[in-house]
């Protein structure tokens, strides 16, 4: 088992999508969506951008830095809270890296 602590979304954690969820673009809604067993999460632009950066190598701090290159204002605590909710739903896993 790789070293994962399922609730860690602090700056040093390295989040990635869980193996059984899929991030995809839905042309019918013109939104990105996160698909998991029995759930569909329709994402806003920022949410999709965060998850697009969750590749298991970037840390949360690096993800926030990437987002700041793209958007004028990025609240790091909101990114952490967003990832924390998805970790609780087991859609995102966090490695210590």
């Amino acid at each position, binding site marked *: 088992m790789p070293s994962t602590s*399922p609730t860690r979304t602090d700056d040093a954690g390295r989040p990635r999508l869980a193996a*059984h969820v899929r991030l995809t673009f*839905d042309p019918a809604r013109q939104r990105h*969506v996160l*698909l998991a*067993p*029995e759930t569909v999460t329709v994402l806003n632009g920022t949410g999709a951008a965060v998850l697009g950066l969750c590749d298991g190598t970037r840390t949360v701090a690096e993800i926030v830095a990437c987002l700041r290159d793209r958007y004028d204002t990025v609240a790091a605590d909101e990114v952490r809270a967003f990832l924390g909710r998805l970790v*609780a739903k*087991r859609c995102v896993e966090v490695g210590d890296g």
Partner: protein
Amino acid sequence: MADLDPPFGLLAELTYACPLQCAYCSNPLNLDDYRDELSTSEWQRVLTEARELGVLQLHLSGGEPLQRHDLVDIVRTAAGLGCYTNLITSALGLSPRRAEQLREAGLDHVQISVQADDASLSDRIAVTPSFERKLAAARLVKELGWPLTLNVVLHRGNLDRIARIVDLAERLAADRVELANTQYYGWALLNRDALLPSREQVERAEAVAREARERLRGRMDVVYVLPDYHERYPKPCMGGWGRRQLTVAPNGDVLPCPTAHALPLPRANVREHSLAWVWEESPLFQRFRGTGWMPDPCRGCARRDVDFGGCRCQAFLLTGDAARTDPVCHLSPDHDLVTAAVHTAGERPAAGDRLVPRPHPHREHAKR
């Protein structure tokens, strides 16, 4: 129709053929009327139209979907379109070879039913020796890396075993367990008096389910579907009529929910209409959309956008009028129909219930 959202989910009932004969089955009583099943290419066209319409979750069910020899082709098409695909199965027919083909075709998630936590009771409820094969298939699902949901329909014959059912789900390393109290449609309604649990059973089971949900949080999702006959308010059936989900029956009939075939409404079939027309324009899907159709007490109720007046099929099956408030609601003028049924169940002796098994339908081979 500016406020009409696209559907999220399509329940594809591929066939009503099934190796099990569970008396709680919600399939139609007139199973033989569904023998002319959609062909592979017809299903593939339906899935393409569904994805264009905005469907993201495809639930493959029945009957037993593994009875369709073209299941792998149907999954491959759906996965290629970008749908998240769920197989809802008895697991009978899920051989290692078939499982590997489905994995390769892109199937995302497997839901396996068990009827109880031990072989003799489970096989008795299924009227088929099946429990050991189900466990083997559940292990196979995990070995192949799929998320596994264990589905258990609850009724007076197994509700007291809910803690042991949760233990079984844990032993199988299920990711989700759905503990679903019986909904009384089809064969289940025919068997209602023998399936309906007592209020004491329901209260004990809810306490166990609540404890399990807390204890297993973050490891396994415990989904408990309420026994609506015992509730004060009705279920928000399908998240609202024609609002989030649609069903396609084995013969191509499109329905707002899998039991709406019982209602005296005009049919809509994929052999005659596009799925987009059915969703957006058909009289069937318009009939109970929104709140404009509602009678009192729903019309002025603060919960009308919460539970949508409950279940139209249940209103029809219990009162003969699909446009009445779901009699499960304690505010319904017909609520005594439900309280009388629950009271009768509480008075019945625990043993000796006679159940009518759902029969095996006759079946033509699906056309290619």
